[in-house]
């Protein structure tokens, strides 16, 4: 029998607010353990949470960007369970009354578009971290992360393959980063994903028994884990067995999923409305204010780049992959008036330099003004495209403006006929054999002469001018 996978994803994204969701502690990553804490996030007796409104605003941005309906009022609930990284013994989350519901995003799938439904987006607080001592039988608790705001984005079971899952995740990731509400760092855990997956005979409606996959901390691992789990479930079903509803952990090294049996199963979280917090009312004015602050999102931006700049779809995709890169590119276009050339230089040399050093476009030593100036130098014939390759590298290395580099290195292109004609004459005189063969019809040798002229002028001659002059001179000779 042929089976088809049914996948739903739960994404947790850490929000980039300055302070935690229910207290004034900083959300900064990487500080010494338990230094970014206060009685509230430590869960001391008697403390009370006070909601950070910025968190609601950030969550609303994602809700609007994914076409969710924002509920006029939402409430916080307590999710009760015991764990050392959870100081209150409960996590403040949303349950019966989430912030937003009924959204969707479109992904590319099999050359077409596919719409993935978003069930809900809700806010909650992050837990702390356990650090297990490698040599001793004890663990440390770091509560710096406790109370860092999260949104959970729950998809409908609309995803039909590991590829679609990754495409969906990338779309969410890109959107969150574009909105500047999440840094998207998967290794540090600011963007995490769990998957629910089941198989059903192709063409049927009813869902099979699902498993929940955890511990996939990269797009690649999501792909591998889902592919593995699809095969595993298929094997179980084809063998006449039954899939057990359970949580399974992805083991990156072994490339398999393991059952996480035992006490983690059968949780009853005993959700109930948190009596320490009041419901949050979100009126149309607030929604309109947040909506008006939304940036242009990647799909729209790509469309616009295709249309306005006439660049290939692939280029538009790369250039809009981050908001900073798109802004950079657009600045170069604005300053140079050359969208295609600008695209070539940004996609080619600039990104190559940055990638080699794993640097962000925001730290690029070549400012858009400088790149536009260099494009202008090519356009007005001051330097050749070939020379520009060296110039741009020097610009990247030193951060200096192209004019200075060109002047200092004497890299000015020879565009003067009077200067080139004697050089051409000398080259032809020095290579009588080749000249003879050319005259006999060996056209290929034209390139040889161009090269020799270039060499003689240390690459400074304008290639077009060499061409023209050589044509003229050889035609006269033939």
């Amino acid at each position, binding site marked *: 029998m042929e089976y088809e996978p049914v996948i739903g994803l739960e994404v947790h994204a850490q929000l980039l607010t300055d302070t935690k969701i229910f207290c004034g502690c900083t959300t900064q990553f990487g500080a010494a353990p338990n230094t970014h804490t206060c*009685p509230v996030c*430590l*869960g*001391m*007796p*008697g*403390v*009370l*949470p*006070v*909601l950070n409104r910025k968190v609601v605003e950030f969550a609303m941005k994602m809700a609007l960007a994914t076409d969710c309906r924002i509920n006029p009022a939402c409430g916080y609930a*307590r999710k*009760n369970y*015991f764990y*050392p990284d959870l*100081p*209150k*013994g*409960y996590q403040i989350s949303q349950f019966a009354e989430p912030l937003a519901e009924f959204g969707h995003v479109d992904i590319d799938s099999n050359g077409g578009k596919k719409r993935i439904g978003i069930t809900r987006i809700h806010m909650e607080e992050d837990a702390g971290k356990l650090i297990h001592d490698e040599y001793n039988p004890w663990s440390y*608790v770091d509560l710096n992360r406790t109370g860092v705001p999260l949104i959970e984005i729950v998809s409908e079971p609309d995803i039909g393959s590991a590829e679609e899952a990754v495409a969906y995740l990338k779309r969410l990731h890109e959107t969150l980063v574009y909105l500047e509400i999440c840094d998207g760092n998967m290794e540090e855990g600011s963007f995490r994903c769990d998957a629910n997956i089941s198989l059903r005979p192709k063409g049927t409606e009813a869902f099979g028994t699902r498993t929940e996959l955890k511990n996939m901390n990269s797009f690649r691992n999501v792909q591998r884990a889902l592919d593995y789990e699809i095969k595993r479930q298929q094997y179980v079903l084809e063998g006449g067995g039954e899939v057990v509803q359970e949580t399974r952990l992805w083991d990156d090294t072994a490339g398999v999923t393991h059952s996480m049996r035992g*006490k983690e199963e059968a949780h*009853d979280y*005993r*959700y*109930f409305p948190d*009596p*320490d*917090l*009041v419901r949050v009312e979100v009126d149309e004015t607030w929604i309109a204010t947040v909506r008006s602050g939304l940036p242009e999102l990647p799909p729209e931006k790509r469309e616009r780049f295709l249309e306005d700049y006439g660049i290939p779809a692939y280029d538009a995709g790369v250039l809009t992959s981050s908001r900073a890169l798109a802004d950079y590119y657009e600045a170069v276009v604005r300053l140079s008036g050359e969208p295609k050339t600008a695209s070539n230089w940004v996609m080619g040399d600039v990104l190559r330099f940055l990638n080699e050093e794993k640097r962000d476009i925001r730290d690029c030593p070549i400012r858009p003004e400088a790149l536009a100036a260099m494009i202008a130098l090519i356009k007005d014939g001051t330097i050749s495209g070939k020379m520009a390759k060296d110039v741009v590298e020097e610009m990247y290395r030193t951060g200096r403006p192209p004019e200075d580099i060109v002047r200092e290195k004497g890299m000015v292109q020879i565009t003067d006929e009077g200067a080139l004609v004697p050089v051409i004459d000398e080259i032809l005189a020095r290579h009588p054999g080749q000249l003879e063969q050319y005259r006999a019809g060996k056209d290929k040798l034209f390139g040889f002469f161009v090269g020799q002229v270039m060499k003689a002028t240390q690459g400074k001659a304008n290639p077009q001018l060499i061409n023209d002059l050589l044509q003229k001179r050889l035609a006269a000779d033939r």
Partner: protein
Amino acid sequence: MELYALTIHELQDRLKAGEVTAGALARAVFDRIRAVEPEVHAYITLLEEPALAQADRADRAIRDGDLRALTGIPIALKDIFCTRGFRTTCGSRILENFVPPYDATVVEKLAAAGAVFTGKTNMDEFAMGSSTETSYFGLTRNPWDLDRIPGGSSGGSAAAVAADACIAALGSDTGGSIRQPAALCGVVGLKPTYGRVSRYGLVAFASSLDQIGPFTKDVEDAAILMNVIAGYDPRESTSVPEDVPDYRAFLGRGIDGWTVGIPKEYFVAGLDPEVERAVRDAIGVIEGLGARCIEVSLPHTEHCLAVYYIVAPAEASSNLARYDGVRYGYRSPDGRDLMEMFKKSRSAGFGAEVKRRIMLGTYALSSGYYDAYYKKASQVRALIKNDFDAAFRTCDALVTPTTPTPAFRIGEKTDDPLQMYLSDILTISTNLAGIPGISVPCGYTAAGLPVGVQFQTAHFAEGKLLQIAAAYEKHANFTKRRPKL
């Protein structure tokens, strides 16, 4: 009259006039504490040294002309309020050595008003109880009869005020924990509107019901303390940004022309005849003051106890989850793994009543039972609140007994939780509705035990509450009697 036996307002006059120093007052109170504590045991922790230093500062402030609302006044704190640098046990073994790193908002406010803190008073463990017998730190005895309980859960605060072991005290009231012990100890106890006094730093029992209020020797002192502790707190989301009037201004106004409701459901079987007589007399006094007393009905009263014993334990089961032995408080040394550490720490750290309520609450919130218990209880709670809203459309205040009986004997109800729960039957509805209530002494039984009358008013009408309490107190004049110790 001894200094320790005076009220806040009487002492303020003397402090202002320079007849008394805060230092002398503090020493007088601690001498009194030394005399009565062996019998009463109102305190878990005494703070004599810091108190004397605070009194010194108060004297300096008075010399500098900086006399505030409570400058130099010795006040006791129920051991449920976090006090920075001083242990806060909540009457529990699990917090036996817990020293908070911060002050509760009310503690900050009292300190800023110049108060001197005598110590932390005894209480039922995590405020769960009606007799102070569930405290890990031993019994508190009723100053009027040492064989009897002082009520609870704020029994230590009530007994301390009654025994003159402080001038006034703060307590907390989740289902009657201020008013019931106030009634049983013959002092004034006020529970404000939910949201009126900040709960920040009050160790939570049932978050939607908990409220902080004063124990005082008379109604005027209650108004003085309310002036200090009431008000919006940005650290509490359920705190209400409502203006705080000068509560003292309500005291002399009288109640001529008021309509006072007598809820018929509060005068039923189980009400001690002596209590009923004293409260009926109080109603007579109220009528004599020009108020029209009418019978009213709060039809959902019979459900109050059931609703309370779903909502309060449910919230408590979650609020008390943080006591797991990981970060602070008692940790069992015997846990071999994580789950065992949790279980053993909590098993040994909590007493029987707390465990009973955690289990009740955990059950009520469990998947499959939530709708039938917690959700249903929340719905009935809304109906109970509606009853009161309806009553206050015609009535300025309600009058009822505070407790069904006078103070009972130590050990009398410890084996019968249900009987114990019934001692709060007349006070619980106030918390469920979120309205303010006050208990004022209204007489004594033949055996000399105090009886309290309870007044209730609409949300945020503490001014009117104090107004009727003061008018009654002035004409009934029961607040002057003190136990013989």
